[in-house]
């Protein structure tokens, strides 16, 4: 098996999910400079809602694709409503408060949503019912499943759709204008409240689909899944340049690749027995084909954070971003 | 002390495609009030921010009190002896007036964490001195009666004074005031004028950005005019007033 190609395929799959979730962070941040911590939880709720619907329909005679579609169709509006309520009830009243206030509110909302989900769905993960015949295709020594293909294609479609919306429609231009300068956009007749609410709603809708994709890729959805997924997607948004829509897409894909390749190779790279010159005590450990692996694939979740920290230290504006540090 | 206090050579600053400052050179003499005027967007505040280390410059050097000024960090500029106020007043809103001024003493004092935790004799002496000096400065700018009020509860004019007191607390040789009269009525402007003249009498050098041309012309020893990021004049007020380039910059082409 070609490990490199396989990891690239896996990385592209998770990366495209990260990208879609990252869009939610970056659009909101672009307009009101708020890290919407609760976005990860919205994504999680999307997955939970869809999984509930899919599970309850799994026994019916409907075709599998229709069942999955029904799940997504339920999750998207549900998340959009949550996104709207979040903005309306929690963030809007704090729009002129000191910087720390909305951030703390966002953390609070994230905890509240997560535990409400725990109340609604319980502690046990929901499993994706075996309704889809997940076919696996061989590509140049690696394997790609139909679910992976579907995730990548759907993500690309959504990213394309959002780009069209943001760059080609009137309302999209209003969003971009507000991201440049929300006050000036307001003077030009853009209704800032509507734009801000729209970024939350669109982000939540995309997030819902991303949640379903992520859940179906790993086969489960769990009330805690939003936390690390959200954190990674946020890292992706920062990597691409927060506030920048193309950046979020690029950052997501890159982060997925880094994570997959890192996880795939870190064990080999930190296996001290594979390094030349093992001596003494270490040599004894390595005898008879032994291994001395410092960091194995169980460090998977570390890569995103390390990437985040490295980006912030060396290129805080991200790959495609312009805005740097605090405004004077 | 007489002679040159600050000498800036060929300061350049660009924001994206906009050349905000273009090879600006100027000299400020010790003990004078130096005015900086120019139409909106001429680059006055940008120059200020470069001098005080808030914006990195693209080119040029600044000599201050005979030494090259480290423009990389604002606190080093303050330590070197340049203090400033802001066009849109920036106080520590939830600290008292007295505390605001005490913060200004930071750069001239030394007590660290361990001194504070152990309340050493040196720390207590220093703390008392900080408080005394802050009190004096509040008296000096005339708002001693508001010492224990939160900065955000002060009137606009008093906030301007408090900002000056905080700047003075850093023991500056050069005090840079960014539009101190903005938004003031005639009485307040008069009082401000007296305050600035008092500062000069006490040996301070003042750099003044101001929109109120009358105030600048009446107060300053010398005036520089910026237009589109370039210095177009630097002279005594009467000469600047008569300078055709200045008149054109202010009134538009063809008016001269």
């Amino acid at each position: 098996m070609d490990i490199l190609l396989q990891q690239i395929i896996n990385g592209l799959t998770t990366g495209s999910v990260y990208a879609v979730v990252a869009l939610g962070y970056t659009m909101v941040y672009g307009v009101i400079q708020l890290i919407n911590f609760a976005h990860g939880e919205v994504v999680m709720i999307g997955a939970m809602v869809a999984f509930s619907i899919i599970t309850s329909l799994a026994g019916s005679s409907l075709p599998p694709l229709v069942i999955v579609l029904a799940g997504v169709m339920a999750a998207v509006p549900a998340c959009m409503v949550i996104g709207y309520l979040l903005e309306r009830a929690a963030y809007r009243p704090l729009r002129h408060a000191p910087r720390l206030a909305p951030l703390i509110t966002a953390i609070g909302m994230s905890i509240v949503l997560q535990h409400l989900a725990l109340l609604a769905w319980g502690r046990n993960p929901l499993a994706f019912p075996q309704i889809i015949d997940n076919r696996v295709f061989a590509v140049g020594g690696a394997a790609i499943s139909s679910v992976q293909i579907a995730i990548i294609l759907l993500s690309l479609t959504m990213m394309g759709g959002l780009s069209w919306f943001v760059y080609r429609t009137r309302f999209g231009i209003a969003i971009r204008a507000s991201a440049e300068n929300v006050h000036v956009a307001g003077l030009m007749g853009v209704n800032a409240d509507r734009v801000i609410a729209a970024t939350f709603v669109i982000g939540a809708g995309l997030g819902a689909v991303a949640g379903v994709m992520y859940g179906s890729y790993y086969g489960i959805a769990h009330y805690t899944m939003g936390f690390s997924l959200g954190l990674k997607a946020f890292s992706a948004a920062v990597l691409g340049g927060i506030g920048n829509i193309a950046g979020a897409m690029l950052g997501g894909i890159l982060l997925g690749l880094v994570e997959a390749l890192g996880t795939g190779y870190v064990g080999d790279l930190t296996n001290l027995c594979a390094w030349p010159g093992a001596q003494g005590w270490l040599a004894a450990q390595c005898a008879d084909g032994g291994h001395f692996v410092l960091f194995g694939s169980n460090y998977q979740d570390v890569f995103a954070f390390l990437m985040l920290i490295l980006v912030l230290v060396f290129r805080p504006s991200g790959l495609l971003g312009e805005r740097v540090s605090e405004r004077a | 002390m007489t002679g040159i206090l600050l000498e800036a050579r060929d300061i350049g600053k660009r924001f994206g495609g906009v050349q905000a400052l273009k090879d600006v050179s100027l000299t400020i003499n010790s003990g004078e009030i130096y005015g900086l005027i120019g139409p909106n967007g001429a680059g006055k505040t940008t120059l200020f921010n470069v001098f005080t280390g808030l914006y990195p410059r693209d080119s040029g050097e600044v000599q201050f009190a005979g030494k090259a000024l480290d423009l990389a960090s604002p606190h080093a500029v303050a330590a070197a002896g340049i203090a400033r106020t802001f066009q849109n007043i920036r106080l520590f809103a939830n600290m008292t007036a007295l505390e605001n001024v005490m913060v200004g003493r930071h750069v001239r004092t030394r007590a660290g964490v361990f001194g504070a935790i152990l309340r050493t004799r040196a720390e207590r002496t220093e703390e008392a001195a900080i408080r005394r000096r802050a009190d004096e400065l509040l008296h000096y700018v005339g708002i001693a009666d508001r010492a224990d009020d939160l900065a955000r509860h002060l009137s606009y004019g008093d906030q301007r004074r408090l900002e000056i007191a905080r700047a003075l607390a850093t023991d500056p040789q050069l005090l840079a005031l960014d539009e101190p009269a903005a938004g003031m009525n005639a009485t307040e402007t008069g009082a401000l004028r007296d305050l600035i003249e008092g500062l000069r009498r006490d040996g301070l050098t003042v750099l003044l950005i101001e929109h109120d041309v009358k105030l600048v012309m009446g107060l300053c020893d010398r005036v520089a005019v910026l237009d589109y990021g370039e210095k177009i004049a630097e002279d005594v007020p009467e000469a600047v007033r008569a300078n055709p380039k200045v008149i054109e910059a202010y009134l538009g082409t063809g008016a001269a």
Partner: protein
Amino acid sequence: MMNMAMREKLGLALIAVALVALPFVLASAGTAWVRITNFAVLFVLLSLGLNIVVGFAGLLDLGYVAFYAVGAYVYALLASPHFGLHLPFWVILPLGAAVACLAGVILGAPTLRLRGDYLAIVTLGFGEIVRIFMNNLSAPVNLTNGPKGISRIDSFQIGPVNFAGSDTFAGLVFSGPIKYYYLLMLVLLAVIVVNRRLQDSRIGRAWVAIREDEIAAKASGINTRNIKLLAFAMGASFGGIAGGMFAAIQGFVSPESFVLNESIMVLAMVVLGGMGNIWGVIAGAMLLSFVPELLRYTVEPAQRALFGKLLVDPEVLRMLVFGAALVLTMRFRPAGLWPETRHRREMNENRA
């Protein structure tokens, strides 16, 4: 009428007597209550540490529990059969504080020049990284014993007095938790004094100045990066000390004690009590520490009585309370239930 100073002294004396008598009163209701109180005091210590970072300097640290974890693991590794080391606590506690402080500096140095909200997310990630390492550093060399954690950690020992067992003195039985209670009170007292002194110092003013307006603070001659780093390091040290005490009191540490929710809890305590106000933070920490107990004794029986079964786990309810506390405080009382004294002074003046 008594003058203010006299009255204040009398009040403090009364509080002191009450605090000295408290563990015996609690013990009569069950030693469990002494233990619960001890953990509440640990949270007060943590909150006071985080208050330096969030309350004074205005830096949102969401990975604070990582420093708590560092302190706890330093203690656990150096005073347990895991490595066969049994150093005395007065060596390990300062060491734990120093290591936590170092971790704070390493994390803070590259990130503190960035915007505040980036700091929040980086600290969040850092907290996770520390937990992941604790979970996985059992191979190739067993450093942390992984998810199983480290057990049989030494309790404190001062001369002949061991904090694990009971001693009888002057007819009173001093159980282990009661001894820890007094020790915690001493540490708490020291931490309060340190906090108060820092607050009223040149450094404390610089912290608040940065919180209020970073640019003005810079222009006023404050080296904001160093001063922020100092706040971060101080907060981390406090977390390290609290962590060491936690390890000794609990006798067992595992990564599960240092999850993000713990950081959020401490943050909620600081925010609800009143960022920047030492007494408010203490009150907030006590209040929220006892919420779970309160829920356990009210919500659980109430549900069983009403529905015949447990519908809502008190544990879940507790986190909902913490989350809601953050949201509602920011919305309706952004300065907390007990705001900083400066504000209060101001409000009293207005009333007069």
